């Protein structure tokens, strides 16, 4: 090996070590996230105790730090979003993959993706000045007049509130859910669709039986991913939900989610109040981590369906 000056293979070693260093940093960030949030939330556990934290009353000046109203607000607004978004996303994905001519489908898909590019705060602004007046003057009075006997549609109308949050969240998770549905529908074997058509079915029956029904587990996966997005979505919700830590059956009533509580209160919080908000953040982290693990395991087990 005379005529070749050997570049020491240390290059490889240092390169790999540097990359390993980056990886270790990522592990530290993740670990640090848990550690710092626990550290932030611990005083609340010690000073006010779990009974207070799990109560229905959030009133910092009175040293009540019950986070249940936030959990309720998060769950209901996210489920509402799923309720609105699922049919639209399924329809959008069907339109994209099965109905529209290729070029129109591509344009449509691009526009749906653009929906995901709009920043949350812009949705919040639009929600505040466009959606909420519409809800307050048309939708909610209509619902109350017709369905006021159902507790969901009763009570005073503010405009801001659960319904507005659910609606905006639905818009924000639609691109994600559409993308998943699109993938799932693409994976339906052509032979299955043709088989259904060969039975003399109409196109609609083929789409419903062959494509949508056979993709149920995939759609469910998309819904869970959508849910995990909705749970943590902050800005738009903070701007339209009304920031009131209460539990009320009415969809018209203002509420608060875990994310919006943290967003609207941390900057001015001190002491136990701050620490309780740390608990809220920790709960949100644990929920999103749990959903992540669930999705990963589900993907591993249901891998054959892809």
């Amino acid at each position, binding site marked *: *090996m005379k*005529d*070749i*000056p*050997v*570049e020491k*293979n240390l290059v*490889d070693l240092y390169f790999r070590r540097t990359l390993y260093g980056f990886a270790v940093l990522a592990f530290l960030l993740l670990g640090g996230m848990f550690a710092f949030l626990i550290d932030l939330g611990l005083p609340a556990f010690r000073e006010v105790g779990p009974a207070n934290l799990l109560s229905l009353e959030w009133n910092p000046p009175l040293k009540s730090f019950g986070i249940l109203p936030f959990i309720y607000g998060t769950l209901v607004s996210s489920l509402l979003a799923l309720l609105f978004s699922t049919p639209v996303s399924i329809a959008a994905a069907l339109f994209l993959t099965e109905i529209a001519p290729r070029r129109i489908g591509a344009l449509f898909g691009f526009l749906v993706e653009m929906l995901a590019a709009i920043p949350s705060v812009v949705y919040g602004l639009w929600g505040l000045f466009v959606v909420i007046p519409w809800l307050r003057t048309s939708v909610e009075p209509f619902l109350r007049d017709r369905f006021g006997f159902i507790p969901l549609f009763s009570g005073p109308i503010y405009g801001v509130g659960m319904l507005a949050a659910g609606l905006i969240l639905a818009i924000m998770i639609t691109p994600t859910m559409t993308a998943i549905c699109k993938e799932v529908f693409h994976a339906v074997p052509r032979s299955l669709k043709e088989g259904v058509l060969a039975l003399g079915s109409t196109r609609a029956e083929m789409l419903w039986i062959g494509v949508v029904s056979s993709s149920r587990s995939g759609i469910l996966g998309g819904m869970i991913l959508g849910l995990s997005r909705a749970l943590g979505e902050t800005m738009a919700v903070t701007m339209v939900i009304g920031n009131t830590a209460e539990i009320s059956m009415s969809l018209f009533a203002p509420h608060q989610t875990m994310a919006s509580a943290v967003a609207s209160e941390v900057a001015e919080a001190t002491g136990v109040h701050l620490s309780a908000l740390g608990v809220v953040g920790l709960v949100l982290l644990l929920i999103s981590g749990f959903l992540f693990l669930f999705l990963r395991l589900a993907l591993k087990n249901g891998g054959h369906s892809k």
Partner: protein
Amino acid sequence: MMTPSPALLEVKGLKAFVESTEILHGIDLGVSPHEVVAFIGPSGCGKSTFLRCLNRLHEETPGGRAEGRVSLEGQDIYAVGTDPVRIRRRIGMVFQKPNPFPSMSIFENVASGLRLNRIAKGIELEARVEAALREAALWNEVKDKLDASGMSLSGGQQQRLCIARALAVKPPVLLMDEPTSALDPVSTAKIEELVIQLKKETTILMVTHNMQQAARISDRTAFFLYGDLVEYGPTTKVFTTPSDRRTEEYITGRFG
């Protein structure tokens, strides 16, 4: 199975695995300088894997592993502590499908081995690139567009570009893994001619799926079957009076 001497490359008991599957079951074989050795056999018989063991590229495939002794000029390339990178500088390789570096120009492709290994630069680099392109019989076709992308060439030209790239670092051994299988007959003829020319400069080990090609250009032929080396000897002998029944069956087209 006589080993010619002095051996340039000496293989003893070479076994190769992917995960726990044994693909080569202990191969012994020797190659002398300035020979063309052809490796034939049905597909999946391990001849490509064998080639990839000779420059320690097999271990880069996921799950790939090799055991045994391969010595290049008396030095075991599988000895503990041997850096595969140094081995690969001495043993060039040309692949089945032309694989120029997509983002590099023709010049940069040929220069890559010299430049990135800091072997040559400036005027010397240019001279060696030109020499390699001439050796690969590509110079006249590309001398006016050295800055064009390597991907802009035809398939046959791309393959000769890859040969030039391998030759630029002057390897004493050149491995070719079915280098003409993706090419048209005219390009194939050019590459075959080139291989015969290159014998003066280097030693060539070539896997081929085409027995006529082996007969035309090689000095020795090795016949692989199911991970074993069945027969190895002078090409004329292997093709006219094979000593193993299975070799005869294969070359007369009775199976494979």
